[in-house]
C-alpha cells in the first residue's frame, strides 16, 4: 500500500481528461505531476495536440507540444460518439475524482456529459470545463485561439513595451510566445479542480467553469487597477524610464533598478562615470524625468559588455540584472540542473529527452515526472479492467 503521507500531494486522485486545447491539457498535466493519475481519453485518431507543431527533430514525428503536455499521463482511446465508447468513458468516470475537459456546452448535452447528467451518474465526480471564454456568458460559444485570447484579456494590447516598442512603434501589438494565455487557463483549471476536491470533502461534488480569458485577465489585474486609478495603460507609454532590455556584445540583458541602493549599485557597476555623480540625479524623480538621457549612456556602455560577466558583477552588487537566456542556455544552466528542472523521459518517436517538471518543489525536491507522453491507446487495458469491474458490480447488484 502507498504511504500517502510521504507521497506527492495528489497520490490516490484519479483524473480523466478529454482535451483538444492546451489549457485543459495543461490542467491534466499539473494534476499528474502533483501525484494524480491522469487518464487521457483520446479519439481513435489521437488527441489533436499530437498533430501540432513543433515536431521533435530529427524524425519530426512527435509533437513537442503534446510530449510536454502529456508527460506522465495514461492514454486510452474511446470514440465517445458511439454507445460502446460512451460506456468506456462512463466506466472511467465512475472511478474518477476529477473530469477535466474542453467540450462545448452543446456537445456536452448530446453526449450526456452536461452538469445534471454527471451529477446524477457520478455524484462524487468534480467536473472542470476549460473553454476559451468559459461555459456561460454571451461569448460562451465563441471560437478562439491563443492569439485571440491574449488580446481578449488585455495583455496583447500592452505588448511589446520597452526596446521593441521603441524600435517598432508602428507595428501591430505583439503576442507572448507560444501558449501563454492557455497555460494560465490550465493553472486556474487545476486550482479550481483542487479547490472543488477540498470542498467535496465537506459537502458535495460540483462543476467548475474556467475561461482562458478570465484566467489571463486575472494575471493582468494590475492594468485594470491602473485603469481604476485613472490611467489607461498603453504599450508605448508603460516602458521603464531607463534600464529594461539592453543589447550587449553577445546578447541581451534585462536591467531594472527600482530602489535607491540598486541605483547606487549600478553606478559602481558602470565604473562610476562622472555623469552619474550629477547632484540632480541623486533624486529618483529627476532620474525618471531624464530617463531617455540616462538610457543613452547605459545602452552605449552595455554594448561593450559581455552578458555573463556583467550579470555576475551586477548580481554581486545587488543590481537586478538577468541575461535573456536562450532555450539552450536554460537547458544547460547550472541552476536549473541543480534544481532538477528537466528530467529525462522516453518520448515515442523521439527518444529519451529532458522534459520540464513543474516550476515548484514540494517537500524539498522537484516533482518527479512519472513517464514521457503515452503512445496512443497505450493503457487501453485500464478501460477493459474498469469495464469488467463495472459489469461485475452490475451483475452483483442484479443477483
Amino acid at each position, binding site marked *: 500500500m502507498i504511504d*500517502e*503521507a510521504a507521497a506527492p*500531494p495528489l497520490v490516490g486522485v484519479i483524473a480523466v481528461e478529454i482535451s483538444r486545447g492546451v489549457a485543459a491539457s495543461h490542467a491534466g498535466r499539473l494534476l499528474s505531476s502533483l501525484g494524480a493519475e491522469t487518464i487521457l481519453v483520446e479519439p481513435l485518431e489521437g488527441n489533436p495536440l499530437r498533430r*501540432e507543431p*513543433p515536431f521533435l*527533430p530529427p524524425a519530426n514525428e512527435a509533437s*513537442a507540444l503534446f510530449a510536454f503536455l502529456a508527460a506522465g499521463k495514461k492514454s486510452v482511446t474511446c470514440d465517445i460518439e458511439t454507445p460502446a465508447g460512451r460506456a468506456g468513458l462512463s466506466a472511467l468516470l465512475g472511478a474518477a475524482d476529477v473530469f477535466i475537459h474542453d467540450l462545448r456546452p452543446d456537445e456536452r448535452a448530446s453526449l450526456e456529459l452536461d*452538469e445534471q447528467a454527471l451529477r446524477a451518474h457520478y455524484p462524487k465526480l468534480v467536473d472542470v470545463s476549460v473553454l476559451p471564454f*468559459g461555459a*456561460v*456568458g*454571451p461569448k460562451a460559444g465563441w*471560437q*478562439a*485561439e491563443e*492569439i485571440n485570447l491574449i*488580446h481578449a*484579456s*488585455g*495583455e*496583447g494590447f500592452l505588448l*511589446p513595451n*520597452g526596446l521593441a516598442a521603441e524600435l517598432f512603434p508602428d507595428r501591430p501589438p*505583439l503576442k*507572448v510566445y507560444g501558449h501563454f494565455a492557455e*497555460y494560465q487557463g490550465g493553472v*486556474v483549471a*487545476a*486550482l479550481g479542480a*483542487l479547490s*472543488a476536491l477540498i470542498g467535496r470533502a465537506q459537502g458535495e461534488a460540483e462543476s467548475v467553469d*474556467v475561461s482562458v*480569458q478570465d484566467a489571463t*485577465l*486575472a*494575471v493582468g489585474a*494590475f492594468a*485594470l*487597477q*491602473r*485603469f*481604476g486609478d485613472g490611467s*489607461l495603460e498603453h504599450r508605448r507609454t508603460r516602458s521603464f524610464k531607463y534600464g529594461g532590455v539592453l543589447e550587449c556584445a553577445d546578447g*541581451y540583458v*534585462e536591467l531594472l533598478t527600482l530602489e535607491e541602493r540598486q541605483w547606487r549599485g549600478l553606478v559602481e557597476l558602470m565604473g562610476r562615470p562622472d555623469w552619474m555623480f550629477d547632484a540632480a540625479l541623486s533624486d529618483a*524623480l529627476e532620474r525618471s524625468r531624464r530617463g531617455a538621457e540616462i538610457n543613452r549612456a547605459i545602452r552605449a556602455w552595455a554594448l561593450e559588455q559581455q552578458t555573463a560577466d556583467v550579470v555576475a558583477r551586477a548580481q554581486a552588487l545587488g543590481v537586478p*540584472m*538577468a541575461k535573456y537566456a*536562450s*532555450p539552450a542556455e536554460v537547458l544547460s544552466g547550472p*541552476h*536549473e540542473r541543480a*534544481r532538477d528542472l528537466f528530467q529525462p523521459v522516453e518520448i515515442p518517436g523521439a527518444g529519451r529527452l*529532458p522534459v*520540464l517538471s513543474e*516550476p*515548484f*518543489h*514540494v*517537500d524539498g525536491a522537484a516533482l518527479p515526472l512519472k513517464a514521457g507522453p503515452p503512445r496512443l491507446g497505450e493503457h487501453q487495458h485500464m478501460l477493459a479492467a474498469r469495464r469488467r469491474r463495472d459489469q461485475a458490480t452490475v451483475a452483483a447488484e442484479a443477483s
Partner: protein
Amino acid sequence: MKSLAGVRIADFTLHAAGPFCTHILSQLGAECIKVESSARPDIFRKPHPVYGRMGPASFDQVASNKLSVRINLKDTKGIALAKKLVGVSDLVCESFRPGVMERLGLGYAALAALKPSVVMVSVSSSGQSGPDSHFAGYAPLFGAWGALGYLTGYEDGPPVEMRHVMDHSVGMNAAMAAVAAVYRLRRTGRGGHVDVSAREVACSLVGEALLFAAAGGSPARIGNDHLRMAPHGVFRTREEDRWLTIAVRTDDEWRTLVKLIDAPHLLTDPRFQAAASRHKHRQALHGEIEHWTMTREAGEAERRLQAAGIAAHVSCNMEDIANDRHLRDRGTVVEVQDSTGRQRAALKAPIRFSKSDVGMARGTPRLGEDEDYVFGELLGLSREERQSLMDQQVIY
C-alpha cells in the same frame, strides 16, 4: 460556502507575486492574515511615482480581502508573536529572499518543529535551492531567465520584457500548488513545503519550446505568427490603434473567410491553395486580409467573423475590459468601492463553481485594521498585553 473555508493563512508575502497567491486563496475562502509593520509596510501603502501615484493606493487588488495586523519582525518578541500566529494557521506564505525566514527563526524547519502539520509556501525569484537562489529579481528578470522573454518578440527585433502578468503567473502557480498541499493536509494530516521559483514559472510557459530545443531544434522569436496557422495575426482596422486578431485553423475556415471578405481571387491564387503554402506565403496573405480589415470597424468585423465560426477578437484595452458585457455577466469583472468611496472595476478570482461561492468581501485593509480579532480573539492577548507590545514597538 467557499471551498477553502476553514483554511487560515499567516501571510508574510510582499510586493506582487506572493500577495497575488494569498489574495486568490482568500477569494476561494481562506482567511488570510497579512503581516506588515509601520517600519516595513507593503508597497501599496507607499507612493509610487513611477506610476504617478503620490500617496497610498486607494484600492490594491492583491491586498484586498485580507485581514491586516502589524508585527515587527526585527524584534524577538515580534518573532514570538509571529510564531503564535503560525500556531493557529494552516498555511504560511512568504516571498522574502531565500534565507530571510530562516534568519528570522521562521524557516520551514523551525515552523514544522513547532507545528508539524504546517504547510509553507515560499515564492522567490529563483527558488530556495541552487547556485542562483540568492539572486535579486523582478518580473522582467524572471521572464529573461526563463527563456520566455528571449522567445517573445518580432522576428527581427529584440527580446521583450514581461511585466506584471509574470508576477501574477507566479502567484497563480503558487496558489494552485498551495491548494494541492492543503488537499494532502486535509487527507493525511501531513504538512509540507512548497518552493515556487519565478524563473521556472517563466520556463513552464514555454515548456514545449524548451523540449524542442533539447531535441536539437532552434525555437526563435516569431512575432504574431503561428507555427502552422495562416492567416494568423493582428490586423489594422479603419479605426486608429484598434486592432483585430484572426486565426484560421482549417481549410474550411479559410474558404469561409474568403467568402466573408468577398475575395474569391484568393481561392484561385496558387500560393494560398494548401495550408502549408498559405503558411509559407503568410506575409502576402496577411496583406490581403488587411485590405479587408482596414475597411472595417474592429468590433463589427469581430462579430461577423465569429458569426461565421472564425476565431477573431478585438485587441482589448482595459476600458474595453472594464465595460465588457461577457466579463460582467460571468462575474469576472465586478464593481468594488475603494477607500475613498469611489466605485471601480476589479477582478473576482477566475473560477466559477456550481455550488461554492468565490469573491471579495472587503477591500484593501488599513494597516493593523484587524488586530482586535487576530491578536485579541484568535491569539487571546489581553488589552494590557497588546498595549505593552505596542509600547515596545513589537505591534508596530
